[in-house]
């Protein structure tokens, strides 16, 4: 029976919107006023809303769960309930293990104290003991890269330094359960990749992670399972890729022709040798057809095709604008099929294709319809190549120089050319 680290059963949280009295000066007259009016009951109820309603989830020990959703879906509220900062209005949350929440990098930093002092302060605030912080002090400093700036008050740090110090302390807390809320969204590229590495390390070390983010690539690469929140309820719960696709579909404006201003994408289909397929081998030549229907007469239209890999990096884009000299036009009621011939020089993996129909006026800012993911391609490739691109490697030769002879001339003589054993595919 797998160990369950975090569990939420029918968790609901209600908030009041509207007037809240934060001073006695406002409260006392309001109370007096209320005692005159008796029939306020129903009105008051309208001022409440459910931030979360009947949310159920389960995280096993050592698992990483991603929580995604639009702004206002209830993700941060869920995190606050999990970490115990707020109590649920209904339902229960059970936490088994030491929990550490990274809701803000550098929580507890005091601007007047130096970096050194703040490391101790923050470390203890996040749940370590003073001895632990003292033991890990050098590691923390090294991780942050701020050795020379430790004795400067933190208010003089740049925001990047601040974030690095904050995450350095947070990364060494070593909890059983880690809750992360958007801390990866600040900082430069090097910092972000350091953070991802550290989180992967923690997951490998057996920590349970709940990760809330808008950065879908980060969620896809770190989490195996994911839940999608929408207006406080769990809309989808399952493997990360499925849930992320569902989220993207729901965010796509104009899917199934809504808000499409007259031109809508009907469907996208891939064919290999005339047959509809979605599983292909790397290097296959396929024909990808996009059907577009227009209700209006329109000139200067372009259809864009783009492809994302499973980490939601954009690996390929093209457009009828680039491939044709004249722009497209539609008549009302016309259905056009655009067939793109593609050679699938991609690495092994899952790819999501999408299409956008745009006008080419003024740099093509008017968008008619977007469909993503319109089509999912499953590519199989030989094991020599990893990643979305295939650069057709061929190992030509291996040159070797022995370090035993000091003279340069002899060294040149000793160069051995070995024949390549591998040949890449073309």
């Amino acid at each position, binding site marked *: 029976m797998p160990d369950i680290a975090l569990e939420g059963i029918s968790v609901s949280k209600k908030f009041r919107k509207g007037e*809240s009295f934060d001073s*006695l000066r406002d409260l006392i007259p309001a109370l007096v006023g209320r005692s005159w009016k008796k029939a306020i009951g129903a009105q008051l109820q309208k001022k409440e809303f459910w931030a979360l309603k009947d949310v159920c989830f389960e995280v096993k020990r050592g698992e990483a769960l991603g929580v995604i959703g639009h702004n206002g879906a209830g993700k941060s509220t869920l995190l606050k309930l999990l970490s115990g900062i*707020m109590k649920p209005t209904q339902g229960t949350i059970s936490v088994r293990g030491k929990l550490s929440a990274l*809701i803000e990098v550098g929580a*507890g930093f*005091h601007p007047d*104290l130096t970096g050194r*002092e703040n490391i101790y302060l923050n470390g203890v605030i996040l749940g370590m003991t003073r001895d632990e912080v003292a033991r890990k002090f050098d590691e923390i400093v090294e991780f942050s890269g701020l050795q020379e700036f430790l004795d400067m008050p933190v208010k003089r740090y740049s925001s990047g330094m601040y974030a690095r110090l904050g995450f350095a302390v947070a990364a060494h807390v070593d909890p059983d359960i880690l809750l992360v809320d958007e801390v990866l969204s600040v900082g430069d590229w090097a910092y972000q990749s350091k953070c991802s590495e550290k989180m992967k390390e923690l997951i490998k070390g057996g920590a349970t992670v709940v990760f809330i983010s808008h950065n879908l690539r980060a969620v896809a690469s770190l989490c195996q399972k994911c839940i999608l929140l929408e207006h406080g309820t769990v809309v989808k719960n399952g493997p990360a890729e499925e849930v992320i696709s569902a989220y993207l579909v729901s965010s796509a404006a104009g899917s199934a022709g809504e808000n499409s201003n007259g031109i809508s994408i009907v469907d996208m289909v891939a064919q290999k040798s005339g047959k509809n397929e979605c599983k292909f081998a790397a290097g296959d030549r396929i024909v990808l057809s996009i059907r577009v229907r227009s209700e209006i007469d329109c000139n200067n239209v372009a259809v864009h095709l783009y492809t994302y890999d499973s980490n939601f990096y954009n690996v390929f884009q093209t457009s009828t604008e680039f491939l044709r000299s004249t722009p497209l036009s539609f008549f009302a009621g016309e259905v056009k099929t655009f067939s793109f011939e593609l050679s699938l020089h991609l690495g092994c993996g899952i790819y999501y294709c999408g299409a956008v129909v745009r006008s080419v006026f003024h740099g093509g800012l008017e968008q008619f319809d977007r469909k993503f993911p319109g089509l999912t391609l499953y590519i199989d490739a030989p094991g020599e190549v990893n990643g979305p691109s295939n650069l057709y490697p061929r190992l030509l030769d291996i040159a070797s120089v022995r370090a035993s002879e000091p003279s340069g001339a002899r060294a040149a003589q000793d160069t051995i050319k070995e024949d390549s054993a591998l040949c890449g595919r073309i």
Partner: protein
Amino acid sequence: MLQHFKTLYHYRQLLAMIAWRDIKVKYKQSLMGFMWAILMPLIVLSAGIVVRIVLSRFSGQPFSLSQLLTVATKAAPWAFCVNGIRFATNSLVGNGNLVTKLNFPKEIFPIAAVLSNLFDFLIAACLLTLIFAFSRVGLSNDILWVPVLIVALVLLVTGLGILLSALNLFFRDVKYLVETVLTFAIFFTPVLYDAQMFGRWANLLLLNPIAPVLEGLSSCVVIHQPPAAGPILYSTAISFGIFIFSYWAFKNVEPKFAENI
């Protein structure tokens, strides 16, 4: 209730850290360093001297060194009370970002505020000891009452601080009320004068729980008499009651802090 104390004990290192932080921050980048701790008692003492001069002119009796020392003895704990309550009231709102983002017993904030002012009090007490050493007032066994009285005072201030910090979180104008009361409380507490001066009405004055403690301190240290038992018992009971009630009330509303701050 006991569970709450246990949890607080579990977080004692954090309490120490926050108190240390409050102390350190108060003295960093400050012009006078530790002189801060002595400033307020000195001001109170100076005010006391003025009041005594006026009183002695009015009553025709000259004021003595022992009278001045009495004021000095009461000035330092009074400063501790005022500052302790003031800083504790603002402690939760002042640490708002930690209240909304982290989970630990929040009474750590008002308690740490009181502790940091206790540190200031100890510095002022050292100065007082020096003054006493020079003035040759002498020691007596009654000095053993001092720690007991201080503990009672700390309990009272902490209790009030905890309650007021929670109130201030929900109703932001509580701190202005508190400020006003603290400013004028010096008139209602026997700091610059003695309770005996009121004769029959002294007991009314001693209803203020801080009053018996202050009177007790000055009587042990200056006059070398043990403090009056009745008022002290009353004051200790009130302090204890306020502390228990405040702690209980605080823990009850604590879950609502993050939403209402």
